[in-house]
């Protein structure tokens, strides 16, 4: 029976991308010179699991690349190589390349083979250039705990159980050297090295040299982990394929190197063979004399101790990945659930309304039951909403790398501070807030933070700080990007705005208005455009994206002290706080976030302007009046402006007065997509079902303003 592996591809890609994120985060945390062992292990595990997965699924390029990466990481892990800045850069680049490779394979697109092979070459080069401080196959250069009196030395010295020279009958065959280093979790995966060695022994004459240097002391030993490694020599009429087959099931669970060390043509003196064998065995014994000179007191637990926590942590980590108490659910399923709960909310509201019209003792009981239903429904709704919530760390996690790279490129010293990463918000909001935040952080790094020299001259620490913070504020979430850089130069913004005729030469602007200028399309005060930012695209896009999410963005800045961008977002896009208004027999919902205030108009404050229709005076400003009944072709109850009410609403930075018959009340409404159920209507962002079962449209204020100005222009 063959198993269709493609069904597992999606999970593999998803897990690999997540793993790469964690690898990247670990790499960024890695201290040059004195790296944390556990971090290196984390990084190694990622490379290892991607290698294993891609080999299983036949993504050979990825497997080959990760193999090189893994080899380098293993050198780090075993302490044979030190983490240097170029290496950290190389490893980060490898993450990028791996991501690109996975994406390409996922999309069934060709790989950027040149980039991959270049980097792979660099990796191999780095491995090849490692300082020769340890033999290739020896583990950490710590004095092994075996070092001690004579009997011990004798005991650990590698022993060729069957000396290769004895294998005379293998004369006409090949000789293979197999370096076999199982990973610690080798046993846990159901593998037993002994079984493999037995199979090898059946293929030909096998000489076994064990490397027990990594074997911890008994008390520190996790018996479920494999700490032994072997160098094997197999001679006889053996091809490579059968050897590979022996290790087939262990692929990805061990380091394996099979190489031919030369056949033995007939007539070659045995001494040569013996020499070659001695060479092969040289690597391990070479350590012994030095180790053996270490006196007995040195055989303390110290050298083993650092390995112990690692050993203990490993199986836990691999177990937790299997059993982390979470499951993957597709977003569609959650949306479906959300939809059903929305329906339930509506049904419950309908029942409530019905219940309130009834009388009598039974009605009383019914109402109590309905109240209970309402509570439960609300809880259910909140729970489902929480399922969609993800911590903002999913977005924040991309910044350490970005800031590091940018700072390096710009020659700045920047510390990135992340707080409130666990603040949760709706997945949809989360996905859409990423790009605006990237723009803001780039701006802070590029324009905000000064070069170290400038900072020191200004009496500031050379290290600039960019701070990303998220927190709940009321029913909203506030995300803040702040820096302690140079702040915005008001005069320069004004000069620029005047030069571009965005404001008149003598206009007096408040600070707030000046700050607003930077959100205008194409506005940039950067003296030179860099590839980081300064092209003037960005801030307007940031504001538009934030507005699309029903949020707003504010800027506070002080010259020389820094800037703060504060983005306020709704927790979810599925539910909106709305004001229901009556127009004729219809009910509309105006999102509360768009409402400035509601008022009754005096005749005196209304004027008619030719070409601009009706306007009314509002705090020293003239705002156009949009009569909703005209916009939607409804027969209103209130015909004159004095009979109805004006809702002052704001959208896209413009304010208008919406003329309605009456205000009905405020409520949370579940948004139903109009596009999904009907089609896009300008000025309407969605629909909801009210308690009485009727449908109310949710107004999209910016859309209405656009539609109204088009009508006015026509």
């Amino acid at each position: 029976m063959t198993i269709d592996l493609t069904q597992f591809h999606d999970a593999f890609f998803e897990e690999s991308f997540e793993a790469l994120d964690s690898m990247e985060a670990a790499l960024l945390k890695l201290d040059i010179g004195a790296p944390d062992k556990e971090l290196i292990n984390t990084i190694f595990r990622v490379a290892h699991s991607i290698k294993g997965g891609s080999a299983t699924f036949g993504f050979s390029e990825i497997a080959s690349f990760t193999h090189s990466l893994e080899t380098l990481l293993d050198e780090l892990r075993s302490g044979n190589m030190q983490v240097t800045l170029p290496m950290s850069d190389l490893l980060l680049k490898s993450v990028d390349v791996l991501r690109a490779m996975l994406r390409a394979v996922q999309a069934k697109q060709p790989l950027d083979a040149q980039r991959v092979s270049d980097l792979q070459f660099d990796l191999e080069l780095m491995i090849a250039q490692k300082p020769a401080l340890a033999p290739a196959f020896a583990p950490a250069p710590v004095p092994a705990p075996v070092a001690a009196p004579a009997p011990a030395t004798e005991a650990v010295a590698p022993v060729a159980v069957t000396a290769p020279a004895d294998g005379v009958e293998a004369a006409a065959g090949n000789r293979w050297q197999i370096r076999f280093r199982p990973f610690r979790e080798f046993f846990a995966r159901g593998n037993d090295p002994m079984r493999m060695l037995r199979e090898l022994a059946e293929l030909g004459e096998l000489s076994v040299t064990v490397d027990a240097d990594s074997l911890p002391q008994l008390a520190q030993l996790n018996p479920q982990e494999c700490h032994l490694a072997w160098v094997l020599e197999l001679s006889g009429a053996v091809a490579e394929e059968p050897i590979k087959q022996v290790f087939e099931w262990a692929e990805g669970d061990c380091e394996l190197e099979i190489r031919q060390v030369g056949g033995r043509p007939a007539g070659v003196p045995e001494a040569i063979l013996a020499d070659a064998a001695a060479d092969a065995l040289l690597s391990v014994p070479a350590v012994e004399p030095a180790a053996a000179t270490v006196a007995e007191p040195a055989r303390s637990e110290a050298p083993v101790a650092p390995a112990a926590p690692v050993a203990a942590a490993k199986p836990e980590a691999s177990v937790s990945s299997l059993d982390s108490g979470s499951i993957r659910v597709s977003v569609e399923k959650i949306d479906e659930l959300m939809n059903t709960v929305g329906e339930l909310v509506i049904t419950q509201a309908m029942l409530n309304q019905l219940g309130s019209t009834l009388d009598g003792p039974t009605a009383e009981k019914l109402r109590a039951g309905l109240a209970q239903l309402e509570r439960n429904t609300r809880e259910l709704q909140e729970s489902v909403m929480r399922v969609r919530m993800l911590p903002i760390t999913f977005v924040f996690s991309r910044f350490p790398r970005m800031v590091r790279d940018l700072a390096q490129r710009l020659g700045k010293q920047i510390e990135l501070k992340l707080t409130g990463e666990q603040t949760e918000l709706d997945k949809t909001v989360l996905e859409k807030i990423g790009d605006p935040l990237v723009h803001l952080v780039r701006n802070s790094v590029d324009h905000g933070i000064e070069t170290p020299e400038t900072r020191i001259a200004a009496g500031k620490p050379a290290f600039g700080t960019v701070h990303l913070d998220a927190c709940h504020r009321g029913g909203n979430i506030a995300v803040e990007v702040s820096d302690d850089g140079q702040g915005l130069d008001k005069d320069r913004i004004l000069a620029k705005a005047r030069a571009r005729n965005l404001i008149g030469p003598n206009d007096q602007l408040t600070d707030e208005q000046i700050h607003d200028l930077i959100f205008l399309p194409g506005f940039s005060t950067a003296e030179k455009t860099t590839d980081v930012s300064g092209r003037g695209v960005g801030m307007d896009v940031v504001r538009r994206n934030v507005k699309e999410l029903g949020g707003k963005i504010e800027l506070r800045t002080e010259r020389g002290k820094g800037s703060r961008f504060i983005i306020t977002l709704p927790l979810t896009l599925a539910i909106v706080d709305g004001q229901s208004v009556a127009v004729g027999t219809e009910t509309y919902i105006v999102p509360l976030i768009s409402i400035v205030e509601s008022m009754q108009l005096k005749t005196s404050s209304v004027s008619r302007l030719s070409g601009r229709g009706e306007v009314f005076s509002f705090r020293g400003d003239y705002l156009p009046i949009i009569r909703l009944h005209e916009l939607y072709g409804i027969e209103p109850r209130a015909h004159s402006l004095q009979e109805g009410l004006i809702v002052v609403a704001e959208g896209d930075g413009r304010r208008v007065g919406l003329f309605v018959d009456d205000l009905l009340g405020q409520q949370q409404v579940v948004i139903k997509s109009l596009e999904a159920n009907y089609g896009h209507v300008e000025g309407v962002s969605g629909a909801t079902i009210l308690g009485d079962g009727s449908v109310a449209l949710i107004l999209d204020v910016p859309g209405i303003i656009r539609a109204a100005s088009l009508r006015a222009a026509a």
Partner: protein
Amino acid sequence: MKKRKPGTRSRPTGSTRPSRAARKPRSSGVFTLSAECTIAESAPLQADLSRLLDKEAPVTLDAKELQRIDTAGMQVIAAFVRERNAGGRQVQWRNAPPTLLCAARLLGLGALLGLPQPTP
């Protein structure tokens, strides 16, 4: 936890495996390996051997009951023998069956464990 004198280990409560009863080390320093020295039994084996680590007198490992051993079991024994040897304390073998000798030969652990070379 109550401290026990090495070599006077009692059977852990709840264990009903017959093979483990036979393992009780006598004060003479003879420790009988159970029939199964595989990964499943590696943790108790480690615990048993740990208690014998510091015993001054030579410890004899009796493998007369041993029927199955895997790399995990061998690894525990290897760590034990190596550590004792390192401290200048001896480990001797008694009744080593072909299973054990074969395993030691395959894994290249014969010399480390101080086992005799099997006769081919």
